[in-house]
């Protein structure tokens, strides 16, 4: 039973990540490859604040969101002033730097990571690892879902779409493209930080290897499988892609083989979807 609850909680966490990346990549076509770094910044902020400074979960969650938004601003500003393609490169470079810094800084525990993160508690009520934590994750997922839906329906969301479709046209009707893009990245990073906090609280142990390329590509796969511009799709993608490696544990394959097979499978998902159904399972059709 605990195993199923752990999987469900993971699904919530990855669905939030999928939604956050979808806002950025699906709507305004900013293919940032550092979503797992934003995820990691959120997780590490929460972990450090709770373990070293003894903060409560909620204030550290909020602080993590703020710090991640600030980091996103610093990453996005110079590259988005120029062109979205540069953002792709600088985001990948940032992921690389984040990974190596976290692995070598003292405050992040170096290669061993941060151990013994206390269980989150709200108003003195400790949220244990079991049902209550799942409930909290589901509440967070629903909140993120509603926020994302609200954003996409608002005027700001329409501007995001416009920027994604045709930058020149959007700027010609007086939209400040750079400002729109940068705020989009910041929102996306903030949402990723929420799931980072949840992850730190669930695992209670984090390590630099939890926030590197594999995780970024898992997020990308979730969004692609579910479909761009479909928030429901991202949730569905997270459900499918988290379940499959878990189901593989029940097959007689040795554990050393499961890792590469999962990676292989994610890669194949990307290729097959791009070749045969580029708009994903639930997404809108993409136009060239």
């Amino acid at each position: 039973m605990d195993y199923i609850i752990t999987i469900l909680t993971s699904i919530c966490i990855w669905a939030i990540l999928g939604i956050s990346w979808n806002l950025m990549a699906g709507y305004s076509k900013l293919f940032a490859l550092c979503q797992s770094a934003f995820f990691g910044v959120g997780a590490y902020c929460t972990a450090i604040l709770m373990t070293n400074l003894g903060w409560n979960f909620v204030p550290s969650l909020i602080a993590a969101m703020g710090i991640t938004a600030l980091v996103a601003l610093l990453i996005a500003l110079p590259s988005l002033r120029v062109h979205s393609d540069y953002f792709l490169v600088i985001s990948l470079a940032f992921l690389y730097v984040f990974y190596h810094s976290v692995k070598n800084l003292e405050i992040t525990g170096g290669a061993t990571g941060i151990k013994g993160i206390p269980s989150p508690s709200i108003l003195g009520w400790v949220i244990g690892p079991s049902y209550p934590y799942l409930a909290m994750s589901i509440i967070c997922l629903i909140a993120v879902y509603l926020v994302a839906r609200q954003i996409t329906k608002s005027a700001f969301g329409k501007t995001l779409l416009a920027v994604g479709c045709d930058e020149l046209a959007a700027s010609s009707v007086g939209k400040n493209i750079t400002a729109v893009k940068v705020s989009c990245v910041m929102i996306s990073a903030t949402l990723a930080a929420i799931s980072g906090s949840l992850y730190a609280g669930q695992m209670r142990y984090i390590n630099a290897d939890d926030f590197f390329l594999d995780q970024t590509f898992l997020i990308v796969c979730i969004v692609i499988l579910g479909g761009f511009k479909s928030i429901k799709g991202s949730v569905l993608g997270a459900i499918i892609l988290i379940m499959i490696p878990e189901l593989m544990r029940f097959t007689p394959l040795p554990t050393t083989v499961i890792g590469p097979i999962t990676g292989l499978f994610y890669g194949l998902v990307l290729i097959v979807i791009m070749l045969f159904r580029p708009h994903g399972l639930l997404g809108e059709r993409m136009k060239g």
Partner: protein
Amino acid sequence: MAIVTMGFAIVINTVSVWHIAHAGTYVAGAYLAWIMVALLGLPLWLGLIISIVGCGIIGIIMEIGLYRPLRRSGSPIGGYLLASIGLAFVIQNAWALLAGTYPKMVGGEIKVSYNIGNIYFTNIDIILIIACALVFTFFFFFLNRTSIGLSVKAVASNSRLSEIWGADFDRVSLITMVIASLTVAPASMVRVIDIGIVPFAGWDVLILALIAYIVGGVGSTLGAGLAGLCLGIIKSLMIWQMPSVWAPLIIFAIVYVFMWARPRGISGKKVWVYEV
């Protein structure tokens, strides 16, 4: 390093594909060389040739199997990018599955160290410099002196106009992919001999190549190669002066400064053009 960057840059510029799967070719080339030399006992030079041919074939398969169908279906640039990431993922994980994740090395016995004063280097370093110069010259002549190279450049600068003038886009992009893939083989060969190959080595190299591409200037294949060279040198000098763990940070700082100060790179021309 510079070789990978040039191969990468020529593909982006010509067919405007973010060719992430180049990382896969790099790794595949290295493993091919390892299989030939370590498992089948062939001499090193034969392994290199087979690895070059193998990389070329991989390039052809990628182009025909993936990029061409995507182009036919009118996929946006992001589509190529994601499919290419998927392919890089598939190739590297396939090697992890086939060969395990331990580093594989061959031909370490031909490594000889020399020193002049305080500077230590090996004959592998010299071979690398020569290989780099050869590939660089090859690219220069290919792009400027042959008719295929000129049509590659034409397609790179304006694909629609050059198609009107009779350039066959499919053929040009196939040739581009093959050239890019062929030339990555010497780089991966050196890697196998020098420090050994692991399945996920492609990512590190690719990230540096992407960065060099930006620093060297979008739209300039040779500029990208030069920048790759400079970045490699800067990185080595930094490691010489401070703990090596900070090397990625330095590289990132360089890119960050470039992004603010000179977004068009060292030798780049225009940053981007609004396509009509």
